[in-house]
């Protein structure tokens, strides 16, 4: 019970951190529409590595919901795009997580997971944008450019995730009371 409460609090805390990054990112103008560094994803990835997929899904979901409510974009096209991207990347992360895990020789590290998340995110956004907002074939011409940006940012956020995980590990943080609870 204590463990559960602590975990809930942690999820809320991580989600809050992700929301802050999400909003900060939203306030920075982007050179290309649809291109954002996606640093809020770093939080999702850190939670995935430390607390598993379910916790990560919670953090990502809360981030999109709370973030859009705070930004006033709930149920707008922006929200649809960001929600579809988040859902797709969480599902993709879940698939890779179940299949390859974290600690086997064949498990990808932060970079691999970041790539999976970023591509799924962008692919879903493009698809939803094409389906709902810009049903024009010209949109697909942008796909390579957008996915290139995704890939570059995935490397950055993968690296950041790795740095953060190492830093948290060195601190030997005491938040792992629920070890083995999954």
């Amino acid at each position, binding site marked *: 019970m204590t463990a559960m409460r602590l975990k809930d609090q942690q999820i809320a805390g991580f989600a809050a951190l992700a929301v802050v990054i999400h909003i900060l990112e939203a306030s920075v103008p982007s050179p290309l529409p649809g291109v954002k560094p996606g640093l809020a994803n770093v939080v999702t990835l850190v939670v995935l590595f430390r607390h598993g997929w379910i916790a990560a899904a919670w953090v990502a979901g809360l981030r999109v919901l709370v973030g859009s409510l705070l930004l006033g974009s709930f149920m707008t096209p922006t929200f649809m795009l960001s929600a579809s991207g988040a859902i797709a990347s969480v599902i*993709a992360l879940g*698939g*890779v997580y*179940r*299949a*390859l895990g974290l600690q*086997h020789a*064949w498990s990808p590290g932060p970079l691999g997971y970041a790539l*999976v998340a970023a*591509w799924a995110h962008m*692919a879903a956004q493009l698809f939803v944008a*094409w389906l709902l907002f810009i*049903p*024009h*074939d010209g949109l*697909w011409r942008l*796909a390579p450019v957008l996915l290139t940006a995704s890939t570059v940012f995935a490397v950055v956020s993968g690296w950041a995730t790795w740095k953060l995980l190492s830093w948290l590990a060195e601190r030997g943080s005491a938040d792992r009371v629920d070890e083995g609870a999954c």
Partner: protein
Amino acid sequence: MKKVIMPALLAVFLVWLMFFSNREKPAQMQTLAMGTLVDMTVLGLGGQTNYQVLQNAMLQLRELETVWHPDRIKPEGQALLAELNRRLQQGETVTVPQPLQQGFADAASYTGTSNGLFDPAIGGLVKLWGFHSDEQFPSAPPADADIQQALATPHFDDLLQNHALTGRADMRVDFGAFAKGFVLKEVAAAIVAEYPQASLLLNGGGDLVAVGQRPSRPWRIAVRHPREQGRYLATIALKDGEAAFTSGDYERFFDSVDAQGQAQHFHHILDPRSGWPAKGSQSLTVLHADGGLADAASTALFVAGDDWPAVAASMGITAVLRVTADGQIEWTAEMAERAELTPNSDGVKPQAVVRALP
């Protein structure tokens, strides 16, 4: 083994994304035919087949062009209409050759329903004005006496009896307001008969026949503004199998002075009642599933002037967009639902009047 599944699925997903997003490029071709530049687009069959279908369509178009040309007798090919005109002018009674019969029957019925406003029998009048030929294009209107004489011909639906016509020295059957629509319809039908899944857009000098649609949306067309160059009057999404035909006073014309010495704009759409260019409209657009009817009706309704709703009803036309001589936009209820008027340069949408069909 399970460890292989997810990466494999991921790879499949990426490949799917690749193919899914790699939309087929449509095949497109242009050719000078039917007295205009014809542009044909085919898609939905795969690149090679699209191209093959276009090639065949091009050959068929050239063939039909020869068949329906009113005057030019080519050594190669069957110049059926030109041959028929030649025999009519020798006073013979001629049975319409089989390949022309359907078109003749359609045109005769449109002459009837349009109350003579569309009339292929006024070919003599067209020739008198000189609009029939690029080489003899007019620079001044003919004498009124000659016009009245050219008008003294029976309507086409009275001339055609049991697939036969009786000739006269000055007779000339001209399908200028019908053949393009009829031929484009035939070309489209031939493609669809062989490839039901094909999508195509046939553009005969600005007159359009659409089949199917683009992968993600219908064929979308713009109607040109009759007075402001480079501007659109409206945009319309065409339905599967629909034709869009516009008659306008702004393309084939010459400027000269009339009998009173007034400077005048003489365009090529002649009013069979007066023998002079039709007054009252700048342009008139018709949508209909039958290209031949759309072609004939756009001419007949243009000629009808302000009375066009009655003619539209009698010809079975429900989608009409018209610009009157003083620039007022008129349309039918169906057209109002389907066409989107293009805003003026200051962003204001022009006003349009809905005319009810009787």
